[in-house]
């Protein structure tokens, strides 16, 4: 007759799978509730100044890096596409290719990844430290809703900043492509700009903004959530905050790419 211990070890893979699935569902539910509560609280009183502060931090603070990345992305795109299209005799199409690639895909995705790296990680670390140093408990004892005070302004600021930064990225990326294709490689300026004008439609731009909005919700929710619940981790203190920050950046980047595919397939 088998002992109880043997029975447990026989069923343990299934139990493990079950526990993992339940934990995932639990986590997703918790994330959804966290987002919904944070989002609703955006519209409460006394939020405006805190949202402006966060827009400044997430938006204005990320501008330089977005301009830099946008410029070089556009330039390298111009360079690569030039050599491909020259072989096919279609260098006149370079403006179209650069603009569509940036507006539809690279702009929203790279902007979201750059903001995740710069502002998202800082969000997680800041909220995480506030959690472990009892600042969030202090808010609760002062009857200040910590979700309203800490999370809602960040969600709102991300919703405002992501599309704006994406627009800046798009514009700078197209300028970068112009620099490498027209200024450095001698493609006709009129052809470059004219093709962009004729081939880029409003739908391309609005689809890019839809993606930027989706990424804003994903990044801000994940980063705030990871920081806010740092204390639930098995690692405590500074180590816990470090792990939360890494998780926030990794999960956000992976979800940006997955959701990009999903959103694109719906929008196409």
């Amino acid at each position: 007759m088998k002992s109880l211990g043997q029975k447990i070890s026989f069923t343990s893979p299934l139990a493990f799978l079950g526990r993992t699935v339940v934990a995932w569902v639990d986590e997703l539910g918790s994330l959804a509730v966290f987002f919904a509560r944070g989002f609703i609280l955006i519209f409460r009183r006394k939020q405006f100044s805190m949202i402006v502060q966060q827009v400044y931090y997430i938006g204005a603070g990320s501008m330089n890096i977005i301009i830099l990345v946008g410029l070089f992305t556009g330039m390298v795109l111009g360079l690569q596409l030039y050599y491909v299209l020259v072989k096919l005799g279609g260098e006149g199409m370079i403006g179209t290719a650069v603009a569509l690639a940036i507006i539809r895909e690279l702009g929203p995705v790279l902007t979201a990844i750059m903001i995740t790296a710069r502002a998202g990680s800082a969000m997680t670390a800041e909220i995480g430290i506030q959690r472990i140093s009892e600042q969030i408990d202090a808010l609760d004892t002062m009857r200040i809703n910590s979700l309203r005070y800490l999370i809602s302004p960040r969600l709102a600021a991300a919703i405002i900043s992501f599309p704006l930064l994406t627009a800046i990225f798009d514009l700078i990326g197209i300028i970068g492509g112009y620099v490498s294709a027209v200024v450095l490689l001698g493609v006709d300026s009129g052809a470059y700009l004219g093709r962009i004008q004729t081939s880029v439609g409003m739908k391309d731009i609005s689809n890019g903004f839809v993606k930027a909005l989706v990424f804003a919700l994903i990044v801000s929710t994940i980063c705030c959530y990871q920081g806010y619940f740092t204390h639930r981790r098995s690692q405590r203190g500074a180590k816990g905050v470090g792990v939360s920050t890494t998780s926030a950046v990794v999960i956000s980047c992976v979800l940006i790419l997955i959701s990009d595919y999903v959103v694109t397939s719906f929008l196409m």
Partner: protein
Amino acid sequence: MENAFIEFEDVTKRFGERTILDRVNLKIYDGHVTTIIGKSGTGKSVLLKHIIGLLAPTEGRILFRGKPIEEMNKRELNDYKSLFSYLFQDNALFDSLTVFENIALPLQQTTNMSTKEIERRVTEKVDQMELSEEAHKYPAELSGGMQKRVALARALITNPKVVLFDEPTTGQDPIRKNTILNLIAHNQRRFGFTTIMISHDIPDIFFISDRILILYDGRIVFQGNPEELDHLDHPMVDEFIKSLEGFQDELTGLYSKKNFMRLYEQDVTHREPDETLPVAAFTVEGLDFLSKNLGDTGAQEVIQSLGGFVNTYFGDVGISTRIGRDQIVTIFPHTTLDEAERILEGFGRELQEHGLRDIALETQSEIPSSDCFAFSVSVGLAEGKVGEDLDLISRKAISKQKTIGRFECQKRGNAG
């Protein structure tokens, strides 16, 4: 006895397999200063967090004015929480906000006060806490002691009904420690809030506490006033409480009460039962008035200097200890009552001629020259029989007190 303000009924708290609170029963009364003593890691902070609703019991219930908290609706719970303020052990200040903004935060976020009114209240509190010069600094730029005062200011800014203090004096020097305790006691009397405090500052907390609760092995093993604690027969008393009370009183440099009692008992064993010994009790009159004029730190410096003066003057003739926030007791083991009277007359003259001026000058060293203050010292002498309860003899001496010295100044350096 009056009805409990807050009551724990068999409250148990477990984190996983660990039981932190084990069927805790306690009562906290309105308007009292209640101090919770216990070894590190015994769940004192956990207990405090249960009171304010940051944690919920695994078993048992907490009652507020007889009503279980768990049965309160959202509005009642909000009203309940609005009564409290909490001073965290590590201050929990927002490092991205200045001192001023930290203190203003609860008013900005939970009231409809105008910016001007908030500014007025915060400025007043900042002045009270002697933080004017630090108001626009960030917490990271302040010392631990200053951070504690900022946290205290933030806890008191909403004029709460109940204030919970989680080790408010940790990391403070003796003067600051007594300043904070004095500040708590003073504000508690002024505003009448109920104080629940975790502290290990023995004997200082005994001077301001109405009730002491001792948490041991997850249970409350003692609830009562500080005098009742003297008669408690529990391993915790020898193991922990007596070890906290050092050889000397940190503030005054006089003997600690424990050491004083040991010396007194040693002396008593060598005497005949019918022998008597004189006991003098000194009081700094108007400590609260002094705090108002001089600041809490300045008032504590006066106590400290007086302790130093008493210690130096009596030398080997008397054994002295501090028995209250503003009271010192001296026994004269080898002196008759007449001799003790003469010694005290000499002490009074010396105190009036030199002592008070020196105390004032020492105290004034950090006070702006425009500030002026006055204080007086009273003394009473009583005779006690060998073996008689020293607290009783002290009370007799206190009841006979007369003013022996008074200090007044017009401005700094112009003492009279």
